[in-house]
């Protein structure tokens, strides 16, 4: 078909926007950044070729504001919009508005987003394509219904209450016992309303000690569907992934082939285009896998797939949006490395309490086998209104042990962030934990091992220590001898 894209507006912020701009730069496609008031001096704004202010801090007034987003694209002369992940990425209405405004939408068609974004429809589609799904009920209006289903199908706690429109761990509440059910139900609904403007929820059996495995798929408008193999995303805290890797250490080649083909089959049935991910929950004790959902967007952890395959998924999305065919067949895809991603969130590594503020010092890791996408620069602010992820650290090696070694070097030696707390100490403890190294873990790994992980936090390093001494010298230089002396 051949549609040209001359300038892309990235309807996102932070690491997400920065990552997409990297590819746009490679392709010499100019970019437009959008920003809310507190993001005026953010890193992604500087990286873009032009930038448009789209409103105040609350996402609903800025990064979720569809009208302003379209207006910004038109005003800046952009002819396409990449939504990144989060915010409007899986919003079918927005995708349609983009197309209606005469702009290119870099992502799957609105109809596909709508169908798969509705967890109930998605589950039905999966069942139609013979993909195994998790037992559950899909249209839940009240708590009584849940109790009835549990009794009928002999389901025991824990169960999962999920926003039908959800994703990214939001609007998802695990229920351990019946006393918590009412409160969890209303919390999930309320969160869902806030995050997605849709308070419908569904309920599923909770797969104990499950592992999270997903398959990256790309497709073009000619109906070519190719999978780029799987990713393991089992290490999560509060249902949000923090460490991902590819390939998955949980499955062997036979199962890998089966899961990947299952995902491809589903996406082909759906008529999927652009990049998307089919997520499964894997029960390692029974070796069974169940369909969870399809993410109709670029995912945070796409980078590890790029490293093991050598492909640029954002570039593929742009090409597909321009109507180009996939330049490869399934048989051309040969992953030949192991990659590990750690999400650097601005959070207290002990409590996960968000840590906002100014990044007073930033030493970005480098060295062999490292890829970084950073949403911040030294001196930048991390505002309290948005996701706490500010840097993606990806390492690669010939095998899993190699990739872990590089990550260890990066987290323990190279990286330095001052001004905000980060998850770095926890990430380091996780990759050094014997169970992680052995590939033995479940989605509850962090909660089950939190005490051990915290005890592995390194007490001190001389870099931090000298800064404490410098603070003392600064204070005494300014204030003179102190009464306590």
């Amino acid at each position, binding site marked *: 078909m051949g549609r040209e894209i001359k300038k892309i507006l990235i309807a996102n912020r932070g690491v997400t926007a920065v990552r997409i701009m990297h590819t746009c730069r490679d392709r010499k496609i100019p970019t437009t950044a959008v920003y809310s008031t507190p993001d005026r001096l953010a890193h992604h704004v500087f990286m873009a070729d032009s930038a448009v202010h789209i409103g105040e801090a609350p996402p609903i007034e800025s990064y979720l504001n569809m009208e302003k987003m379209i207006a910004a694209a038109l005003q800046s002369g952009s002819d396409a919009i990449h939504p990144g992940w989060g915010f409007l990425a899986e919003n079918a209405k927005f995708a349609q508005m983009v197309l209606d405004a005469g702009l290119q939408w870099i992502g799957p068609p609105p109809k596909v987003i709508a169908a798969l974004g509705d967890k109930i429809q998605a589950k039905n589609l999966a069942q139609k394509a013979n993909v195994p799904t998790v037992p559950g009920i899909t249209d839940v209006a009240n708590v009584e219904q849940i109790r009835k289903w549990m009794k009928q199908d002999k389901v025991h706690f824990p169960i999962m209450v999920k926003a039908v429109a959800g994703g990214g761990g939001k609007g998802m509440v695990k229920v351990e016992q019946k006393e918590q059910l009412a409160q969890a139900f209303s919390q999930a609904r309320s*969160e869902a309303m806030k995050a997605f403007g849709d308070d419908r929820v569904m309920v599923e059996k909770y797969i104990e000690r499950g592992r999270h495995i997903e398959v990256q798929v790309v497709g073009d408008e000619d109906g070519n569907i190719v999978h780029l193999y799987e990713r393991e995303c089992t290490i999560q805290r509060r249902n949000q992934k923090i460490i991902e890797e590819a390939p998955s250490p949980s499955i062997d080649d036979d199962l890998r082939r089966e899961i990947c083909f299952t995902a491809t089959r589903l996406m082909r049935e759906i008529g999927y285009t652009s990049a998307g991910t089919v997520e499964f929950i894997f029960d390692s004790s029974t070796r069974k896998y169940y369909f969870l959902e399809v993410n109709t967007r670029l995912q945070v952890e796409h980078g590890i797939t790029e490293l093991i395959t050598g492909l640029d998924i954002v570039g593929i999305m742009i090409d597909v949006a321009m109507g180009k065919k996939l330049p490869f067949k399934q048989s051309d895809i040969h992953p030949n490395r192991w990659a590990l991603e750690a999400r650097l969130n601005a959070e207290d590594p002990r409590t996960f309490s968000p840590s906002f503020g100014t990044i007073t*010092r930033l030493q970005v890791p480098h060295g062999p086998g490292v890829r970084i996408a950073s949403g911040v620069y030294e001196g930048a602010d991390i505002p309290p209104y948005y996701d706490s992820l500010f840097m993606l650290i990806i390492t690669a090696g010939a095998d899993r042990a190699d990739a872990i070694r590089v990550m260890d070097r990066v987290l323990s030696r190279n990286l330095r962030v001052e001004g905000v707390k980060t998850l770095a100490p926890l990430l380091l403890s996780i990759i050094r934990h014997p169970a992680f190294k052995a590939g033995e873990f479940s989605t509850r790994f962090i909660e089950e091992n939190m005490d051990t992980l915290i005890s592995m936090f390194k007490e001190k390093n001389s870099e*931090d220590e000298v800064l404490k*001494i410098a603070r*003392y010298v600064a204070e005494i*230089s*300014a204030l003179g001898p102190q009464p*306590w*002396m």
Partner: protein
Amino acid sequence: MRTRESSIFVKPGMSPREIVDAVRSLDGVCFTSVGMRDAGQSDFKNRHRIYDLATLAPFYNRMGLFSAECHGGARWHVGVMNRRESPFEEIEILRRLMPNVLLQTLIRETNMWGYRPYPRNVIEYVVSQVDIDVWRCFSFLNDVRNMRTVAEVILKRGRLFEPAISFTMADWATNDYYLGVVKDIVDLCGGTDEIIFCVKDMAGVGSITRVSSLIDAIKQKYPDLVVHYHRHITDGLAMPALLAAAKAGAKIFDVQEDSLVRFYGHSPILGAHAYFEESGIPVNLDRSEAEAAVQKVREWINFYDWAESPFKGLDHTVIVHKMPGGAFPSSFEQAEKGGFLHFMPAILKVMSLYNRIIHYFDVTPGSQITWVTCSGIVNKYAKAKGEAGVRHLIDLLTKFVDEKNVDFDAMSDEEKEELLTLFRNAPGDFRNLLLGHYGKLPMGWPPDWVYQSTFGEEWEKKIRERTELSPLDSIEDDDLDKLRRELVNHLGRNPTEEEFILYLMHPKDAIEMIEFREKYGEAPLVLPTDVWRKGLRKPGDKVDFELWGKPYSIELVSIGAEHEGLVHVVMRVNNKTRVYTVETPRAKKAEIRMAKTMNEIGAPINGNIWRIGNPERGSLKVGDIVHKDEEIANLEAMKMENAIVAPFDAQIVEICVKLNSFVVEGQLLFVLEKM
């Protein structure tokens, strides 16, 4: 002068008996240097930092000392409180720099390195964890029973126990009295072969004939006992007293660098060396090393002029008021601060009369009890009747002590009545002393009128409560696990063993120090003293140091002007520019109330309070009744909701947060009243 290959004759690792034999067979005498502890305590308020003292260590290591007193006494507490150094770090540093030298502490029997009697299990725990070779232990009551636990643990560890008698000059402090104490000590220690015995003249009051006579009497009775003489110089007669003691048979003498000598510490090492040798008594000392140490002190001693007392000078009247070492100048400073400096002569006079009524030794904690009690009495009289009142007090006490020979019944009824209120406002420690909480007094309990005067109508009851037992037998063991949990709660982490011991001795100050060190790291150990005390003063000033084997440099670029209580300090830390915001005392403190008690509900994490109440019943207000597990607010952080629930059935007393406000972890949200 003798020349020897090496003067080193005792070393860490030798058994107590080997050490005692080595001293016995020494031709002449030897020295303990108190340059790292008592010298600083007496004249510099214990402010000498290990950073500077450590520069002496290489010389000590070759000098041939008997030991280096570097630990204990008030150095412990001041280290924690004012220097922010841990005594454990000091030992570790000195061990590394002077492996040949016996490290010596001063421990106050059951009071150890604190100011109250500790229970037996605390003593056992602490003494067994401190890496010290020579344990000089004294009792301000000469109650040898109190030394038992310390002695047992030290003997069991194979370290050298050095029991000390507190020495003073008084009509009741006779040779027979002291020989009785020495006997108790020899009995406690199973003979004279594994201990060094110390005469502790902490105020520097021993006259030449008195010291000579006492040591002679002790050596007559215990010819094998190795005697160590600790004598302050306050009266100006120290060196002749040292020589007299040496001639009477004492073997070890406390000295300090000549350049450290002021007025209340110990004799100069080079002077003492010369005086002994000229008098025909050989001294085991490598004099050139001692001279080098004396020179070394001059490189840093000027950084401590601020710590010296403005009330300088020897004082032979110490033989009547008996105030020891550093307590003398510091009491003058207290009096100046308190506005009663002009009463100091009167207070010293009252002290000299007081110590003839109640008999114990003016050394910690006794000296503090004496000072607080006597200065309190004088101030009470001064407040009520001015100078005339103070004169009257001295007349009354002089009459009682000098004329009536402390015979209460010989006083008139009116005078009796006055004496019977004399101690009514005495401090708690004085009361504890009378009740036997520190142990037995050396000359028995004070007369009944003192109890009447102190306790009023309750005096007979108090006498019945008075214990004859040693604190070791009367104080119940502390619950160490509970204390450790307490510390864990304060710190939010597990303390090290060493931190726990600091906490056992001085709970409040230990926590402050640990928090200081968490914030400022090793600043107390690596910064030179001028920078430690005054910082970098002008742009371009810099300080270079090593930390954990790597070089660092901190350079001052500029100090900004103060604005609303904040100053920006620009520095280059290893060439990287950094800006520090420093709060001055005028900084506005945004006070955030934190939840502290059971009834106070705090925020579980940082976030935005977007709902107060819950969807079922809407918002809540003060006075509302809430039920256990009912959601009372909801906090959103990074798009996740967190329900805050009532921990029990309760009424809302206060809502401390506004809707849609950002709160920090632990911030007070609700005050509830349990129903």
